[in-house]
């Protein structure tokens, strides 16, 4: 009987924690980048798949062919010469919120945060940190953050155009 009761308690506890972890997702988040030195280097991707959990885990995946440039020629160069989209179609980020304790997923508000994790792009994986904000509205989070991406860190030879870009992330989760 004792064993049975402790089993029930354990089961309830497990159920409870399973319920406590909430995962939010989107298939159409937005990531854009631009260069301060060349105004033609500007593109946006509206098909970013991302998940964020209230345990602080956050992932982003996008397809580099999904970046839209104003200039078609620039878009072709980006895909063929710089990020080699046919060879490396996807970029992935897997990380965690550094200050999870300061973010309350069940209370509406804007929380300053910082995300740290591994970004894989052009076949190269690097640890990066990005500062941003999590907004909780009606229990649903949205994330915006910004970071500088240095081309040569990811073996991207774009010296002719720009050596770094500013990346903007904006995702609204369901």
């Amino acid at each position, binding site marked *: 009987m004792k064993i049975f009761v402790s089993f029930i308690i354990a089961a309830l506890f497990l159920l409870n924690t399973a319920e406590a972890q909430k995962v939010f997702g989107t298939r159409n988040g937005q990531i854009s980048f631009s260069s301060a030195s060349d105004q033609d280097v500007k593109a946006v991707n509206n098909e970013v798949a991302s998940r964020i959990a209230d345990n602080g885990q956050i992932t982003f995946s996008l397809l580099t062919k*999904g970046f839209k440039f104003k*200039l*078609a020629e620039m878009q072709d160069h980006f895909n063929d010469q710089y990020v080699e989209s046919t060879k490396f179609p996807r970029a992935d980020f897997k990380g965690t919120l550094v200050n999870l304790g300061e973010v309350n997923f069940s209370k509406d508000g804007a929380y300053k945060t910082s995300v740290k994790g591994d970004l894989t792009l052009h076949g190269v994986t690097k640890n990066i940190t990005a500062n941003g904000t999590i907004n909780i509205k009606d229990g649903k989070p949205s994330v915006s953050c910004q970071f500088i991406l240095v081309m040569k860190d990811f073996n991207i030879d774009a010296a002719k155009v720009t050596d770094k870009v500013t990346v903007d992330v904006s995702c609204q989760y369901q």
Partner: protein
Amino acid sequence: MKKWLKIVLIIVAVGVVAAGGLIAYVYLKPHRDVSKEQGVQLSAQKIFDAFKTNEADANTKYLDKAIEMTGEVSDVTTNQDGNVVVNFKTNDPLFVINCTFKTNPGQLKPGQTITFKGICTGYIPDANVVINEGVLVK
């Protein structure tokens, strides 16, 4: 006119035309228009199966190609730039084919079967296949 001056003028003229052509090429090259392309015809389920079974193989077949896909609408949303996005059902409840229209397709409803033509940008495991810059075929 002196002969050397003529030669110089010709060289300058050729240079100007070439530079103009290059600038025009870079700045005026049109974006791809999928509505003018012949698409690979297949179902939403088939493209999902292809990517799930062998991503590399499916990439060579479908990546950057015009895809004319027929399937059942799971849900209709808009992205942050205001374009209509339709998710097509597959037999995996967590996996869809995520399709973005470049022109407004008009009223679409979940459950409807439609044919969409767009450009495939690839596969995101455990989430979706992405097709964008699309138009409604029927």
